[in-house]
């Protein structure tokens, strides 16, 4: 039974909260500027609670079951993070209050900047970007600004591998530069000979996801970096897959010039049903002045008795702000809490176990499913959701059938270069028992594909909703609802 819409639960005169009476005289309202209708729902508090609790029960989340959604790093989100971000001393501070009265916030942000610099091997970090894609835009604008500052205005092309996330080419277009796609070779690396042909003085840079979206560490990463640097371009690193690299290698040491981190992937801040994320950007020495500002710095080192004084500074040649205020501070607190608890060795262990879990799944599944690049992978890998002897079965069917076993499907149909792709990222927080169960389910589904494909085509069966009609949604657009009495008024 679907849950009624909020307006369907509304009855005139109900209230969900009591508010204090005014303790000042009423002022005259501005003539002609006051609205006539305020079509908001009217519910008691309990009805509000029941409505949203019932809705929540239609969701699958990490706290409910396995969520091996490739490239999204759906790791467990420690509860302590949530308590930390809600401490009144953090949650009840205003972004524009005098920095002298927000030294705790600034100290936390400074430490986070420093740790991210150290983990990525960069000279400076800005915490301002709100999400991974926002970090990408920031990074690409920095690259553009760098070349223009040097009078290199003809550098307008950004190279993007064909395995890249869609955000990479979309970002490039937003920055006003041009996308040039580079193919992958048969081992899943960037095709070096193709790359060589494209290098020239019109190249602004290359966007590289490493490990790439196949979960493979780019085997020729140094050659790629050297080729790009050799022609005067810069390397942009998409940090979506940093969960594989903590304490393993620093992108800055590989020669990357810019990188965005995803605090909501690598550093355990919750995904929130699609956001808010947080996408800090790290840069090498030559790009420090171009970062979006403000960033946090130490204004006065302090001494044995006095703590340092932190303040906000604007980088000299900044590309400008990418959002209002200072970034997703609530996410900064959560990531800080996580990193501080993990510490240096814990972070290395995160990557080790993320890579361990992914490789374990790959070797246990590669006799049942085709693994197009069957070599040691990093934190994720890609299989093909198709069988020669069951031609009607697709990755989508396998995905939907997984839901019947309480498992969120892997990312499907991505990367685009693998047909019927299922991209699996187990993360380090899952037990061997969970992985073994997943392996069994995947094998069972493979058997069903041959013996009873219909059960896959019609899946899911055990979920509160069956497959949704996406074609109808797009053809007959219904994008909002309104209260019934308001609807009548609008129509008349």
């Amino acid at each position: 039974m679907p849950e009624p819409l909020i307006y369907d639960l509304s009855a005139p005169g109900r209230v969900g909260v009591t508010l204090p009476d005014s303790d000042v005289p009423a002022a005259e309202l501005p003539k002609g500027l006051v609205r006539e209708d305020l079509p908001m729902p009217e519910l008691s508090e309990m009805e509000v609670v029941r409505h949203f609790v019932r809705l929540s029960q239609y969701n699958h989340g990490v706290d409910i079951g396995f969520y091996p959604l490739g490239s999204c790093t759906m790791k467990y989100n420690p509860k302590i993070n949530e308590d930390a971000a809600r401490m009144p001393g953090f949650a009840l501070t205003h972004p524009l209050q005098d920095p002298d009265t927000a030294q705790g916030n600034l100290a936390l942000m400074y430490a986070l900047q420093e740790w991210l610099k150290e983990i990525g091997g960069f000279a400076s970090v800005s915490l301002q970007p709100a999400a991974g894609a926002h970090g990408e835009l920031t990074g690409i604008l920095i690259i553009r600004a760098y070349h223009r500052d040097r009078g290199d205005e003809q550098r307008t092309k950004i190279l993007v591998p064909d395995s890249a996330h869609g955000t990479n080419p979309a970002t490039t277009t937003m920055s006003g530069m041009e996308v040039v796609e580079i193919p992958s070779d048969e081992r899943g690396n960037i095709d070096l000979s193709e790359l060589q042909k494209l290098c020239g003085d019109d190249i602004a840079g290359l966007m590289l996801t490493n490990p790439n979206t196949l979960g493979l560490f780019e085997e020729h990463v140094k050659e790629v970096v050297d080729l790009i640097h050799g022609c005067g371009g810069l390397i942009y690193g998409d940090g979506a897959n940093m969960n594989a690299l903590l304490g393993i290698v620093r992108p800055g040491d590989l020669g990357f010039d810019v990188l965005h981190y995803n605090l909501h992937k690598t550093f355990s801040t919750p995904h929130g049903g699609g956001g808010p994320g947080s996408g800090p950007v790290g840069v090498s020495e030559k790009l420090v002045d171009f970062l979006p500002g403000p960033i946090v710095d130490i204004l006065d080192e302090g001494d044995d008795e006095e703590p340092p004084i932190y303040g906000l500074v604007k980088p000299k040649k900044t590309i400008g702000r990418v959002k209002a205020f200072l970034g997703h501070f609530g996410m900064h607190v959560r990531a800080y809490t996580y990193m501080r608890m993990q510490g240096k060795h814990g972070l290395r262990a995160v990557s080790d176990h993320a890579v361990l879990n992914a490789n374990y799944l790959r070797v246990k599944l590669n006799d049942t499913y085709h693994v197009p690049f069957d070599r040691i992978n990093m934190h994720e890998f890609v299989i093909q959701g198709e069988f020669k002897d069951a031609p009607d079965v697709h990755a989508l069917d396998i995905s939907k059938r997984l839901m019947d076993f309480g498992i969120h499907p892997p990312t499907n149909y991505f990367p685009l270069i693998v047909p019927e792709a299922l991209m699996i990222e187990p993360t380090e927080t899952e037990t061997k028992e969970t992985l073994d169960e997943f392996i069994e389910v995947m094998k069972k589904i493979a058997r069903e594909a041959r013996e009873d494909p219909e059960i896959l085509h019609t899946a899911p069966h055990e979920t509160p909703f069956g497959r949704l009609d996406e074609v109808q949604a797009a053809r007959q657009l219904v994008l909002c609802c309104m209260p019934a009495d308001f609807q009548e008024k609008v129509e008349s």
Partner: protein
Amino acid sequence: MAYIPHTDKDRQEMLAEIGVAGFDELYQDVPEDVRFPDLDLPESVSEMEVMEQLQALSEANLELGHASCFLGAGAYYHYVPSVVDHILRRNEFYTAYTPYQPEISQGTLQAIFEYQSLMCQLTGMDVSNASHYDGATALAEAVILALNTHRGKRSKVILSPAIHPQYRQVVRTYTQGMDLEIAGDEKCDNGPEDLIALLDDNTTLIAVQYPDFFGHIDDYTELGKAAEDVGALFCVVANPLALGLLKPPGEFGADVVVGEGQPLGIPLSYGGPYLGIFTTSDKYVRKMAGRLVGETVDTRGQRGYVLTLTPREQHIRREKATSNICTNQGLMALASVVYLSTMGKAGLRKVAELCYNKAHYAAEKIGQIDGFKVWNFKPFFHEFVISCPRPVAEINDELLDIDIIGGYDLGQDYPDMKDHMLVAVTEMVSVDEIDDFVAALEEVANA
């Protein structure tokens, strides 16, 4: 380790299955000379210890619960009913990701559909997306929508100087590679008539704020008509809480209404995460960026929701996408829906009126102090400008001594407005706190 469940036995068995002797062998593809850096990071601490450290850090701040706050300027201190956070703490909501698999994401999807609906009703527009990062980036996306609508043939954007200065900066950052002319905000006193004079057939979008950065409430009907006459899109940056009282921008012909959703149940949290509201009229639905949820049915005939019109988005359109955005502020959008559902029709109106009345009370009292003058000459909502007898920074320092957070120093952004303070008054301050603030200003003036 609490978040890594492997036993030694698990590790040995798994490494053996993979066919490697130890973890280090998993990284043969990583260049050896830079493999396994010795990171200069602190050692791990326990949950108990980290909480002690966080407690100390948070207590080094002045929290608004221990002060009287008259600071707004785009981020406002409002009461958040307890129920909002109880719902946000439902792990089914916060540990889920983008609802790509609608069969097991109807909670998120229906909540977004309800969010879209409430935003449409509040702004008086036809369509709302699932949200952008914040009010500033929503405005930048409105500019991009306009450019796409005119297929890049128009290159002038008119921004009112009374749009939040940081929002205008973000528009400039976003569009720095697009070769645009941005006009209108050169002088702080450019009003709607001055902006209308700038409209021409090269103008792709004209944007104003409502109430504006200085608190003014303007009727923008004339401006809307003038924009329509030259075929430019008319964008209003609105405060959604003020729309509990004020005429919705849809009524004066807005093509796009964006705004910062933070006042709707989202804690200040030192600037984020917040909520970028983005609504438009029907005709722009295929050009707008961001996620959209639409109604449909499932195989069992049940009403349900899915992400729709996805061909606009980056994962399909790649370099031809309308924007690179691939998330929304899901949990913050949920906060605003729970807030609006709890406040309801009466509660939202009451909060807006409390803000309005208290701000007018404060303005009247401050206007009576020698040396201070209320600068606003038009109706205002819950924020107003005062000219001060001394630099605002000095006044604010003295106010802090008695735990009052004074208003925003406008001289930072508007050179002509040196010694002008933007004062915000919400339902969170009592009449006594306003009187104390007034008394403190009086003392400052006489110092």
